[in-house]
């Protein structure tokens, strides 16, 4: 029947009885949807300790983690979470920090900035964590940062490279390099190593990270004497890039710079090849995920991206981390796992150095970090809370990212 029928007295009774059922169904949907977005994971659950944040504050050190365990870029959050969990497990097995174990409380943000803000707020206000860890994506760290500032809780973003994440903030730190440097790294590599002069850019216009990185690349590349022949954009979640790529093809570039996330890059690479272009693609650390090769397949062979670390680095710190990570999770860690690991260890190191759980003291210790030896390089915080460290350029060969070059700051 259509809804066009008249609502006479006969229909009334049927309609009434159906309303509460409909309402309860909607409510049920909402409850299930909400239940899906929240996951607690104690990296180490000590028996007998209270689960409420407030009561256990005296005995445990609490790390609050916001991660994209679900959502479009779920491997980012899963890698970060595994890296942090591994670091905390190792620290706890070695006796904890200041004689206390660390417990991680993780909330999923479904890959959304608004959920990240909500999760950060909950960690800070309800769970009263000592340190806030997260996020990978700059858009989501930017949503968390004001909450850390407002409540005076030190926050470490493992992998957000957009400069605005820490800019002008007292409480926010990161363990990765920033995009002005990363953009320059790829521009220098393209100009000096590959000798390219004509490059096209395809950026994700809805992503702070991608837009920022594209701008820094364009500036550096033009400064070095190259030309950007076409500057196109897409939105994350798009599946068809042929129109943009047709425009790019008409300009006949020698390479295409795509500073997006791995989910889109794989599809873009395929469509580049389908349109008959054989130029290499170039990108940033947002490419780093095993899913990239699954979706992109052979279309990515010979492409380059800048990253935080290479699993081929022979340094014993790096190889030891890879071996332990492999043992725990059965896969080679990507850079986001390595950065998560570094972020958790940096937080523990800061607490140990200052010998206090006072949030202001932890903040001070983080700000004065000198020569902290991490998996992704040696971290010394500058005045803007950004570590100064080198980047690597990786080349994709046989569906794996192989080391091509290190570029110092």
């Amino acid at each position, binding site marked *: *029947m*259509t809804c066009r029928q008249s609502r006479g007295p006969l229909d009334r009774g049927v309609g009434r009885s159906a309303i509460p059922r*409909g309402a309860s169904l909607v409510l049920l949907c909402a409850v299930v949807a909400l239940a899906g977005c929240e996951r607690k994971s104690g990296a180490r659950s000590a028996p007998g300790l209270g689960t409420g944040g407030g009561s256990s504050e005296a005995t445990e050190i609490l790390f609050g983690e916001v991660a994209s365990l679900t959502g479009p870029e779920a491997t980012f959050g899963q890698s970060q979470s595994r890296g942090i969990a591994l670091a905390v497990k190792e620290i706890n097995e070695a006796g904890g920090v200041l004689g206390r174990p660390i417990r991680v409380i993780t909330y999923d943000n479904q890959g959304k900035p608004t959920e990240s803000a909500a999760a950060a707020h909950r960690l800070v206000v309800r769970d009263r964590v000592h340190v806030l860890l997260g996020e990978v994506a700059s858009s989501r760290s930017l949503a968390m940062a004001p909450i850390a500032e407002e409540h005076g809780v030190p926050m470490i973003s493992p992998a957000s490279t957009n400069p605005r994440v820490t800019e002008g903030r007292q409480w926010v730190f990161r363990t990765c390099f920033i995009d002005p440097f990363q953009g320059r790294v790829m521009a220098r590599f393209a100009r000096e190593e590959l000798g390219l002069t004509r490059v096209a850019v395809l950026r994700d216009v809805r992503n702070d990270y991608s837009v920022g990185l594209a701008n820094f690349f364009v500036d550096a590349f033009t400064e070095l004497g190259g030309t950007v022949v076409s500057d*196109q954009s897409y939105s994350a979640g798009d*599946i068809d890039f042929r*129109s943009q790529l047709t*425009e790019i093809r*008409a300009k006949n570039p020698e390479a295409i710079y795509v500073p997006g996330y791995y989910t889109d890059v794989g599809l873009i690479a*395929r469509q580049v090849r389908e349109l008959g272009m054989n130029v290499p693609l170039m990108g940033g650390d947002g490419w780093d995920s095993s899913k990239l090769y699954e*979706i992109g397949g052979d279309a990515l062979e010979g492409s380059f991206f800048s990253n935080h670390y290479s699993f081929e680095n022979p340094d014993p710190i790096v190889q030891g981390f890879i071996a332990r990570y492999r043992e725990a999770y059965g896969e080679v860690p990507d850079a986001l796992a390595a950065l998560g690991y570094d972020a958790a260890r940096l937080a523990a190191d800061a607490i140990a150095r200052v010998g206090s759980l006072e949030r202001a003291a932890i903040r001070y210790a983080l700000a004065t970090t000198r020569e902290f030896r991490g998996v992704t390089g040696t971290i010394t915080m500058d005045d803007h809370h950004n570590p100064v460290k080198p980047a690597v350029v990786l080349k994709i060969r046989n569906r794996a990212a192989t080391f091509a070059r290190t570029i110092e700051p």
Partner: protein
Amino acid sequence: MTEFFQHLVNGLSLGSVYALIALGYTMVYGVLQLINFAHAEVFMLGAFSGYYLASWLPAFQRGPRFLVVLSLSMAICAGIGVVIERFAYRPLRNSPRLNALITAMGVSMLIQAIGQLPFFMGPSPRFFPPLLPNRSLLSVAGVGVTTLQAVTLGSAVLLMIGLHRLVFHTRFGAAMRAVSFDGRTAGLMGIDANRVIALTFMVGSALAAAAGILVGLSYPRIEPTMGVLLGLKAFVAAVLGGIGNIRGAMVGGMTIGLVEAMAVGYGSSSYRDAVAFGILILVLVFKPSGIFGKAVVEKV
């Protein structure tokens, strides 16, 4: 000029996908005056059924494998469509329209959230297996058409012709149009409205599944949230063509696909989505009934 024709080809192959999804929206609206937001999720489930079937049915070789996967996914999603109708919408048949609309949103979110649980599909994107070889089919003066683009456009057109025959040249089609025209009177004439509505959901969902498979083939990244943006675009296409009208959905889908391709080609690629949704606003302001809304009295 080469670019123009390449944009034309790109736009048509994307537009045919929008059109297939839009048909499901428009058919359900035609008989129930309900915007079935869960339709985008049926499309997503269609792509995932194809993904799982392709990995469970390795015995079939390339050619028939595509057709087997396509028809089985269509059958599975037809079933899913009926289940959604039976349990979410039928109990609300006589309650205010708003209740059904909110329920549709709830069902949509429910399927999306459940799909992201690791036990089901998990949140990470999957790679859709290549069921058909993808190579350049023909290339005239720099304008390339791939086999997949041809298959997408061809399958979409065939399915739309089939649907058109079903609706306008069969007894079921007549019953469907009768229910759409006036459900109560159709009931008095001996038409089982519930059955017609269930069948409408079956047909619409099967078309969504076909769109899911075609999208998976051309854009081999599938994930539980893939229906959101495409579903929204298809909805815009249905409104543009005149929601409730089958020809309108086909024309609307093609139009949105072409306009998007041209907007990126000759305007700015940043405004791609803005153009699609801008069209929706313009349609709602100047011709709320859509392109075919008034020209054709008979709605499906």
